[in-house]
């Protein structure tokens, strides 16, 4: 069932399902089972009828038009043939036509779709246009036409229905392929020097197999129906071969006399189609990654921190402050939230937000902070229930006892909410002015007044005139969040709940939105419950702070006090992880590594290469531009960027979204091409169309770690296979690489045939690497979904380093991770960079991250480098105005 019950189990650790099950949920899926049973029934019937039927289905031996009885279970037809035997034998032709038709469609449609998806461009477009034209000829029409030309019959029906189904398969295969090709794990495979065929075989086909299978089942059902229709029209299998459709057609003249002649084959057809459809739906549910995407296991807390819920004694008692305390605007008492399955998401959470008070609620992913907000507004998802007390000033009683209608009257008027994701929080089909006005009309305002007030509010949150007439997609993320804020404050509520309101925004925009929110809340004297993972933001926005860990409040108090003297271990640890101190003075920037020494048994080629280039830039970017054109518009992602990265340097690139930093990284990594300018990475000229051999050379020495640890690992491969993938291309395995036992005399073709080094050597290399990134050895046999975000990023780092590259390029490697894990991963990167004598190129939106890891930084904005130099210098004495703004906007943890 595609129901949000799965949403309710957010945060539930996935049971260990063992090898071979990627994202499968345990338990029996009812639709799948019923479908399989029905389809099995039809298949068995067809098979049995090949060797046995009660009577000869084509022999007219009995009395005509007998009703169902003991002798003839389903009666006889107008010639005296046994209906039961005919229905049994009819299953044969049904299955045969369906099977062949689907077979034709799969064999023709899937490669077409995959090709169109992988190649894109003109060829892809042409293939899909062709398939679209075929869409104008439905199978039934095609069968009639082909029947007219070549004569009707079984073969014609099969071929026509098969051809008619090709577009469906081509579309499914193409959209699946496009999705896979956009994934970071394909980019990672490219970066690992894998060819197109290998990518198609190892990543694309396994990942689209599920949807193709679903389509098979659906189209099989369509073919069964169409075959029956054709037989009914007399254009299917000719008599005397039994066929369900023809039986139905022949029954027509005996309606009222022998209705069973219509009903029996009708039930047979419906059974087959129902079974196939149920099977398809069941498969879709079971294979749908969204439904099986139970959120990943929680990050393992460091050893200093007890992972289990701290005992009650550890929970800091709330200081009695009733005397000077005004009555709370929002009063959450002993709030406990449980899923239908009995899992506790929040236990006994007590939070008070005074009138005009700003309270921060801090927690990492899975801590239950969003559930707290939703419970306060009565917006908990289906299947999740709250107990305890939710009180609002001026509203008698417990909000939890109110029905949806009574709650709705309070929401948006007394208490309102700002959500995390501005891109999806607004109705895409409605102008934003109307959406703001609706907040007021819902609570009784006159339409015209509301419209005028909405325009005022939009102006108040700093949107340009005329914004009310815009649709959400015409606004930027920051602007949309302002709209949501305007909506939330339209009725001057007593309490505003903001759930990570600026997490999706750039720092400079975050700063503006935060300032605005604080000002508006202060002006209105409203209470603010501000939910975030970012301690620095809390220190700037809030007066009081509540720390949530695994659904339990572990500490609370005034921000200054808690941050200066944290009493709970977890708070201490969060604070420590949130403060990224600048990198210690780099050893020697120029010659961090003496040529040939650190890499041990480097080959002569490498020593020479290094000796030649030791003083030169390892990565040289000269006046590079990158322009994307498409759909009538042009985007200038890079507008003339120049920089040099020297051997052993740790080079950071900082910029906000749209600055071009990721584009630059891809060009340097050979994953994209510059429109103009010169790029040299590790001695490989990447300017213009690069010869594939040179590109291979680059990828043997340059590896990439991507931003999203959830998207960059193929969900259907084991961790061992993922880490080993770069080793499969022998070109990547250099002398002095990770496989010393590998016999160098071995003929090249053998290496090619075996797909690179021997499997045992690969296993050893993988094990060594997993150990180096701090993962358990048994990790190799498990699947990515069994790991937390931080662990997945470790896997991605292991994959990048398994071939011992000289350059490691990391694109926002920690932006998707929790604070406490962020630091661990950064420190791991830094340590490995030292141990492996890596040149590191790190891209981040976070100045603090770059300052923590890098010794050199380039600041990018709108496709240009506005400033670059040693990190300390740029950070402490920014020359460019933008760098200054960026620095000022970056929230600092005030302790």
């Amino acid at each position, binding site marked *: 069932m595609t129901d949000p019950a799965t949403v309710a189990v957010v945060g539930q650790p996935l049971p260990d399902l063992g090898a071979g099950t990627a994202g499968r949920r345990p338990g029996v899926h009812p639709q799948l089972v019923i479908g399989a049973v029905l389809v099995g029934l039809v298949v068995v019937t067809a098979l049995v009828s090949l060797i046995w039927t009660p009577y000869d289905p084509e022999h007219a031996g009995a009395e005509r038009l007998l009703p169902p009885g003991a002798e003839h279970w389903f009666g006889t037809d107008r010639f005296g043939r046994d209906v039961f035997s005919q229905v049994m034998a009819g299953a044969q032709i049904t299955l045969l036509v369906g099977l062949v038709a689907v077979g034709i469609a799969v064999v023709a449609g899937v490669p077409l779709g995959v090709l169109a998806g992988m190649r894109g461009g003109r060829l892809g477009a042409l293939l899909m246009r062709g398939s679209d034209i075929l869409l104008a000829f439905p199978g*039934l029409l095609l069968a009639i036409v082909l029947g*007219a030309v070549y004569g009707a019959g079984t073969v014609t029906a099969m071929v026509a229905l098969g051809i008619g189904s090709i577009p469906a398969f081509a579309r499914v295969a193409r959209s699946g392929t496009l999705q896979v090709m956009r994934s970071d794990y394909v980019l990672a495979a490219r970066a690992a020097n894998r060819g197109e065929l290998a990518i198609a075989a190892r990543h694309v086909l396994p990942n689209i197999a599920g949807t193709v299978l679903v389509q098979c089942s659906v189209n099989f059902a369509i073919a069964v129906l169409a075959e029956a229709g054709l037989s009914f029209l007399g*254009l299917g299998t000719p008599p005397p071969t039994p066929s369900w459709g023809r039986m139905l057609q022949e029954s027509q003249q005996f*309606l009222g006399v022998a209705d069973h002649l219509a009903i029996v084959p009708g039930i047979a057809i419906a059974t087959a189609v129902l079974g196939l459809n149920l099977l398809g*739906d069941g498969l879709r549910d079971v294979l749908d990654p969204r439904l099986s995407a139970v959120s990943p296991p929680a990050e393992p807390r460091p050893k200093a921190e007890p992972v289990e819920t701290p005992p009650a004694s550890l929970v800091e008692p709330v200081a009695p402050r009733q005397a000077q305390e005004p009555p709370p605007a929002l009063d959450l008492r002993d709030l406990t939230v449980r899923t239908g399955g009995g899992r506790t998401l929040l236990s006994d959470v007590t939070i008070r937000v005074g009138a005009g008070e700003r309270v921060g609620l801090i927690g990492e992913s899975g801590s239950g902070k969003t559930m707290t907000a939703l419970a306060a507004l009565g917006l908990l998802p289906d299947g999740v229930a709250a107990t305890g007390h939710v009180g609002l000033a001026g509203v008698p009683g417990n909000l939890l006892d109110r029905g949806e209608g009574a709650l709705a009257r309070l929401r*948006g008027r007394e208490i309102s909410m700002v*959500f995390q994701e501005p891109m999806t929080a607004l109705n895409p089909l409605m102008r934003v002015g109307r959406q703001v006005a609706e907040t007021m009309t819902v609570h009784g305002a006159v339409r015209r007044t509301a419209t005028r007030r909405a325009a005022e509010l939009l102006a108040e949150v700093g949107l340009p005139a005329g914004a009310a007439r815009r649709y959400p997609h015409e606004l930027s993320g920051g602007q949309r969040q302002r709209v949501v804020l305007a909506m939330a404050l339209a009725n001057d509520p007593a309490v505003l709940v903001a759930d990570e309101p600026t997490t999706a925004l750039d720092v400079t925009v975050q700063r503006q939105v935060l300032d605005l929110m604080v000002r508006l809340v202060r002006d209105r004297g409203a209470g603010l419950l501000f939910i975030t993972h970012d301690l620095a933001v809390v220190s700037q926005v809030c007066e009081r702070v509540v720390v949530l860990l695994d659904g339990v409040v572990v500490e609370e108090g005034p921000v200054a006090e808690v941050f200066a003297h944290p009493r709970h271990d977890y708070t201490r640890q969060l604070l420590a992880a949130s403060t990224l101190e600048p990198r210690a003075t780099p050893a020697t920037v120029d010659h961090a590594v003496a040529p040939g020494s650190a890499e041990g048994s480097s080959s002569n080629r490498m020593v020479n290469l290094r000796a030649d280039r030791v003083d030169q830039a390892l990565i040289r970017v000269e006046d590079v531009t990158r322009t994307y054109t498409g759909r009538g518009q042009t985007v200038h992602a890079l507008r003339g960027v120049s920089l040099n990265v020297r051997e052993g340097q740790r080079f950071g690139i900082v910029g906000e979204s749209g600055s071009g930093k990721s584009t630059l990284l891809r060009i340097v990594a050979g994953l994209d091409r510059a429109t103009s300018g010169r790029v040299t990475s590790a001695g490989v000229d990447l300017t213009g169309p690069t010869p594939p051999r040179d590109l291979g050379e680059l990828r043997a020495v340059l590896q990439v770690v991507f931003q999203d640890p959830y998207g960059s690992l193929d969900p259907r491969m084991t961790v061992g296979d993922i880490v080993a993938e770069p080793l499969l291309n022998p070109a990547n395995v250099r002398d002095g690489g990770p496989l010393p036992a590998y016999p160098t005399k071995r003929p090249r073709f053998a290496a090619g045939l075996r797909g690179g080094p021997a499997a045992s050597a690969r296993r050893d290399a993988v094990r060594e690497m997993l150990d180096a990134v701090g993962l358990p050895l048994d990790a190799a046999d498990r699947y990515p979904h069994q790991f937390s975000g931080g662990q997945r990023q470790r896997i991605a780092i292991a994959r990048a380093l398994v071939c011992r590259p000289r350059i490691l390029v990391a694109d926002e490697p920690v932006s998707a991770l929790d604070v406490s894990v962020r630091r661990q991963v950064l420190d791991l990167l830094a340590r490995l960079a030292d141990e492996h004598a890596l040149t590191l190129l790190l891209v981040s939106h976070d100045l603090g991250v770059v300052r923590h890891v890098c010794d050199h930084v380039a600041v990018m904005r709108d496709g240009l480098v506005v400033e670059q130099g040693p990190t300390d210098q740029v950070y402490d004495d920014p020359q460019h105005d933008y760098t200054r703004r960026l620095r000022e906007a970056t929230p600092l943890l005030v302790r």
Partner: protein
Amino acid sequence: MARHLASHVAQLAATLLVATAAIFVLLRVLPGDPAVVALGIEATPGALAAWRAEHGTDGPLLAQYLEWVGGLLTGDLGTSYVTSQELTPLVADRVQVTGILVLLGMLIALVVAVPVGTLAAVWHRNAGGVTLSAVSQVGVAVPNFLVGVLLVALFAVRLGWLPSGGWTAPVDGFGEFWRHVLLPAVALGSVQAAIITRYVRSAVLEIMREDFLRTARAKGLTFTGALMRHGLRNAGVPIVTVVGVQIASMLIGAVVIERVFAVPGLGSLLLDSVGNRDLLAVQSIVAVLVVLVVLLNFLVDLAYTVLDPRLRRAS
């Protein structure tokens, strides 16, 4: 917007050109000389030549194709090889019949499917929703001609309330028209209702999970209010697609229903022409059907841009 429209129209024209060429090759070129098909292999060369001259099949194939397409554009479908009838008035008459049947069937389907599918989604956790979903699942599996046969058995044969088949045009008597159109339209529409119910259900379920629906509730709408005001229009985008695809499939599927109820629609004409090996008629009817299907897809594309402001600009 104008540019968007222009590119759509260009695509439409290209699709129609290729599709008609395919039909021409399939039905005019591949079967061989239509004169031989019409007169038999024992016909004298003279008779064949005379036949070719009469039916205009003696020129080069490209010229014949262009003449045929030109005829399609100007509404001249040619003359039947077999009956020597003008095809245009015949086809026009039959298109009307099939059109009425299909549109009425779709109307019945939508009237049932939109509320039922929405309820099935809203109630998806309780018995009512599961039952609605199961019934629609079974409904999808039933072929429409079975429904037709059963309707005839019940209402025409047993109860005798309605005729078992035949047709009366609305202009020839409105009451009689309804008596004749009701059963085939219900047969055609009921299965569609089941199919569309399933799409509506999944579209509404999808919408129920959207963030903006939660936003709407956060500003004071009840769940039902939020679904009605914000949900249904958003669910409308995928539903319009399905309606377009299903009308196209009903145009073809009507062939079978017309056979059940002996309705003189386009499908019956197509089958009769196939039976007579009247290839020019088949060619023209198929062309008309394909043009209708392609136009429907085109209209669906346009409907998107009306429903979804994100698609109004090329950006």
